[in-house]
């Protein structure tokens, strides 16, 4: 039932990217009668392409086109995101948490913090709640809508037992977009592990096998894989008119459009806007505020591994198998603004543990650590980082990619608040495992960034950000930001549920505008 549209057909909405933002938006628009062409840079895989091998799937899924990381980032691989149909929803772990009320009004709640570019969102939790509910229902989030939670695996049981001894109260197996029972044509979780290499049975929600085929079944949707958008075109009035993209042979085409929605993740989205500069928009599209590419957020993260007194086999079962929520509140008495979540995370196989437990380590003592692999327990710490104007994405002055597009340079340095939070979180995680007699505990630095937000942020006033509370660009009414780039702040929670909720809301708004001939 999938359809093809003509390049010159300017009645379509073009969606760039097919992940949590673009994939969801595409389906929601087509369900409302809108014709959509989705351009996805990566290839289209099927479930049979997903194997339980971390290295193979890293190569098969990841966005490996050159990016340069500066500041605190991994210089060669600043981000760990995907270039494939379904985007990073193929890789994500499935944690689906709502933001808290205060996280939508951080400037008000936290006050002025030196060096932070804090701003309240133009939307409140109350306004977003109905869309969160629809997102949870769509994704089959456990612990919502009467959907039972997943059973806890060994790694969760260790974390929960330690949490109890430390005195934490809010500990459970999370709100996960992983089926705990057969639902929506997808099976219940088999506790396979390897969630972040792609779920081989489709128990984890991914747009690859939910939103995208549903959009196709409307007969109003075309997805073009291996289509890398390099430029967005506009007319003399400053309305976008289409996009230029390279197909898999590198040949360039222009797809005309009635409206363009950008959902390329928080590096590619601003990169595309900046690369679409013109005489009318010399600083890039939608950038009269100068905020495109700024305020890049990646979450405060860190990992704690511990060698426990008994066998754990922490790679068995769902990778993000449970959560401690007690530290997610805003409580400045801890020495920082905002909060963090503690979520189980195993290693990525024996090679992953050897690489990451103590980066750069070797020798007889470290070999003994690796030999304790089956006694490892692990958790990931993820919390709110503060927006800073100097953290962001710029175009490289000279170096270009295979399509002639300047490669992105991504810069991030921790704010002192991020460092204070990470140090607190390391201590808290360590205490959980020491409460059970862990013989050794390791505090791992951040991995390449999986949560990427903020580079085209929403704002009430056009001078403070790139788009309004519907993700609509302040400067260009038929241009939308449809991914985590539109976040005004990062919250403590994994971002996907909020991206999906915003995409549902944006689709409703955009379809309404189109039906009223507003664009």
């Amino acid at each position: 039932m999938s359809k093809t549209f003509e390049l010159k057909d300017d009645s379509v909405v073009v969606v760039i990217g097919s992940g949590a933002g673009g994939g969801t938006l595409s389906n929601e628009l087509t369900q409302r009668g809108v014709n959509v062409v989705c351009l996805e840079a990566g290839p289209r895989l099927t479930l049979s392409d997903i194997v339980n091998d971390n290295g193979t799937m890293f190569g098969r899924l990841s966005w490996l086109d050159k990016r340069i990381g500066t500041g605190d980032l991994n210089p060669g691989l600043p981000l760990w995101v995907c270039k494939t149909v379904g985007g990073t929803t193929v890789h994500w772990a499935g944690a689906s948490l709502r933001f808290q009320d205060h996280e939508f009004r951080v400037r008000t709640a936290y006050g002025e913090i030196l060096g932070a570019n804090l701003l309240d969102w133009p939307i409140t939790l109350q306004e977003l709640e109905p869309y969160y509910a629809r997102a949870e229902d769509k994704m089959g989030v456990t612990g919502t809508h009467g959907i039972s939670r997943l059973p806890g695996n060994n790694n969760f049981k260790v974390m929960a037992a330690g949490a109890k001894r430390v005195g934490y109260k809010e500990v459970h197996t999370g709100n996960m977009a992983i089926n705990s029972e057969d639902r929506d044509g997808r099976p219940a979780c088999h506790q396979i592990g390897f969630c972040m290499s792609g779920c081989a049975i489709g128990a984890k929600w991914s747009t690859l096998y939910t939103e995208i085929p549903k959009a196709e079944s409307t007969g109003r949707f075309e997805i073009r894989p291996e289509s890398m958008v390099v430029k967005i075109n506009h007319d003399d009035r400053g309305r976008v008119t289409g996009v230029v993209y390279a197909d898999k042979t590198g040949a360039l085409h222009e797809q005309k459009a009635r409206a363009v929605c950008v959902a390329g993740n928080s590096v590619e989205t601003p990169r595309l806007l900046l690369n679409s500069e013109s005489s009318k928009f010399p600083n890039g599209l939608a950038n009269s505020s100068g905020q495109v590419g700024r305020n890049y957020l990646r979450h405060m993260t860190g990992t704690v591994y511990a060698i426990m007194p008994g066998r754990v086999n922490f790679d068995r079962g769902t990778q993000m198998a449970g959560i401690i929520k007690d530290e997610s509140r805003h409580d400045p008495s801890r020495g920082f603004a905002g909060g963090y979540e503690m979520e189980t995370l195993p290693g990525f196989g024996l090679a992953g543990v050897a690489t990451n437990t103590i980066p750069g380590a070797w020798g007889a003592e470290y070999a003994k650590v690796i030999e304790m692999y089956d006694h490892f327990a692990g958790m990931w710490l993820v919390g709110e980082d503060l927006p800073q104007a100097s953290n962001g994405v710029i175009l490289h002055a000279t170096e270009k990619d295979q399509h002639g597009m300047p490669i992105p340079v991504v810069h991030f340095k921790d704010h002192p608040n991020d460092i204070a939070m990470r140090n607190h979180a390391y201590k808290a995680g360590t205490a959980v495992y020491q409460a059970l007699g862990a013989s050794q505990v390791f505090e791992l630095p951040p991995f390449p960034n999986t949560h990427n937000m903020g580079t085209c942020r929403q704002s009430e006033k056009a001078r403070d950000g790139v788009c309004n509370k519907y993700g609509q660009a302040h400067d260009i009414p038929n241009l939308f930001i449809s991914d985590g780039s539109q976040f005004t702040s990062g919250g403590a929670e994994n971002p996907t549920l909020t991206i999906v909720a915003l995409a549902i809301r944006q689709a409703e708004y955009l379809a309404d505008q189109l039906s009223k001939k507003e664009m």
Partner: protein
Amino acid sequence: MKAKPSRRGFLRGTGLVAMGFATGGTIICAADYAWALSTTAIDAHTAETLLVVARQLFPHDRLGDQYYASVVDALDKQAASDPAVRKLLTDGVGRLDSARGIVWVQLSNRARDAALKSVENSEFFTTVRTATINNLYANPLVYRFFGFEGSSVEHGGYIHRGFDDIGWLPSS
């Protein structure tokens, strides 16, 4: 292969047998011929040294030399396709050998560590360390020794195979 061995014999201190060929490659065997490694780009001394370096970096008594030999095999393949890697490896081994004026493989355990420590920030060291992790620990025959069980989807995951079988946790 028909080539004249240019060097043959027990490599002192390693318990391995090496045969070098005038063509540049080499064969390294266990003393009991239980396994053999042939290289095409790197010479016998470099290959033998890299094998011992791999074990020195991540020494596991439970693992036989054949698992470390797979690291040398991978490095040899890199060297075969990139002359710069071949030079990096050969020069790196040369640097280790010159650390104490005695070939590195014949140094004491402590002196080997010290010599490796002195080149820890070199590209040679990073290349060998990364290759060791990626070839030693990603080998299913190795990781099963350590309790990583590898692919599970074909066994139906762990839902009926012990995902929650932990038995030692305290009840309070």
